[in-house]
């Protein structure tokens, strides 16, 4: 019986011309899995860097003028897109590590914790190198729909109907008016007649400012207060 089966199988192997799969295929598979794990961990680090940047960049002062509560402001500021991205990347890394040669020996919680801690450390380092901001700016400029996925301080100051406008002063027309290019590249005529501090030194060409006031029409905004960007 024993010999019968072994003979039958060997005969079948010979008949079908079955050969062991070459070793390079298994090595390639391992290489792909580890590359995927490393790549997705790096992307996870970038996601953390952007999350950190968005939290640091968040301008809480705007909520006072928008009459939002602190909770509303925090909920608005949470970069959901990046948290979802991080979760997906962590899942991909976990999958890749679990399918490596000895990956199954580690508990899923341990793998996920290690991946997340690695991503956090990498993210902190990348954010210190301004990678978070660079990625954010790059995506805003190159991916049309991306801007709607995150709420930044620039978004907070792009609500003229609610009295908030931010951008770069492009030209001083007179002591009572200047031109401003907002963060969506739209040009505005700013009326400073009702400006509370007439000697405001922030009004100069090239300065990035945030303005509290009222929208007069589609391209005119009446300034009440002007602050340098970042204050």
């Amino acid at each position, binding site marked *: 019986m*024993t*010999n019968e*089966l*072994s*003979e*039958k*199988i*060997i005969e*079948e*192997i*010979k008949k079908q011309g*079955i*050969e*062991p*799969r*070459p*070793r390079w*295929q*298994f090595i390639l598979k391992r290489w792909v899995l580890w590359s995927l794990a490393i790549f997705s961990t790096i992307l996870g680090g970038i996601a953390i860097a952007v999350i950190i940047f968005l939290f640091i960049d968040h301008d809480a002062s705007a909520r006072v003028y928008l009459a939002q509560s602190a909770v509303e402001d925090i909920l608005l500021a949470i970069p959901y897109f990046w948290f979802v991205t991080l979760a997906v990347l962590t899942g991909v890394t976990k999958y890749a590590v679990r399918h490596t*040669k000895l990956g*199954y*020996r*580690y*508990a899923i919680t341990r793998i996920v914790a290690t991946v997340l801690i690695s991503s956090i450390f990498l993210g902190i380092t990348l954010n210190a190198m301004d990678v978070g901001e660079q990625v954010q700016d790059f995506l805003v400029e190159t991916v049309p729909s991306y801007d709607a996925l995150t709420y930044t301080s620039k978004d907070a100051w792009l609500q003229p109907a609610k009295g908030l406008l931010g951008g770069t002063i492009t030209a001083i027309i007179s002591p009572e008016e200047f031109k401003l290019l907002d963060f969506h590249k739209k040009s505005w005529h700013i009326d400073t007649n009702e400006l509370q501090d007439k000697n405001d030194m922030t009004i100069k060409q090239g300065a990035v400012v945030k303005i509290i006031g009222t929208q007069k029409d589609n391209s005119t905004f009446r300034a009440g207060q002007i602050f340098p960007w970042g204050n």
Partner: protein
Amino acid sequence: MGVQNIKTDQELVSDAKKNKDDFAEIIRRYQSPLRRYVVRLGCRDSHEVDDVLQDIFIKVYVNLNEYDYDLKFSSWVYRITHNETISFFRKNNVRPMPVATEEELRLFENIADETDFTQSLDAKINSGILRSALMELEEQYRDVLVLRFFEEKNYSEISDILKIPVGTVGTLLNRGKKRLNDIFATKNINL
């Protein structure tokens, strides 16, 4: 008559990679334990067992270069056997049928020893009870119980065969034994 030099599994693998006919020795060495394991996993029809075994050995042969010499060859072969048998059940929509008779009794003894809930094996217990109890267990518990108490594999080997962490093996064993105990309790079997 000189002393016969018995080759290690690793040596047999190396030989089989060079010569197809040498793979027969691996088949001869593992055919009996794997046949028992396939049956214990719930494949009861002898023709089906033969078909599954053939598929298993062909898969072993095809993947010989994947075998990592740091791992016990038996663990690697058992892993393929487990996966192939489970996929056979799924492919053919067959429900596994755990074995009856003396083996079950042996399993039962082993489980009872480990869980300290034994006084003695009672004559009341018959093979049908254990068979139906195992049938009621989820696959994950049945897998570890069979490997631990039928195949007498240690935790590390079970971890390598089922590709789960050693800690999970312990957890599944404890839960599996507890569930088995609960099933016996619902059937009014006193252990």
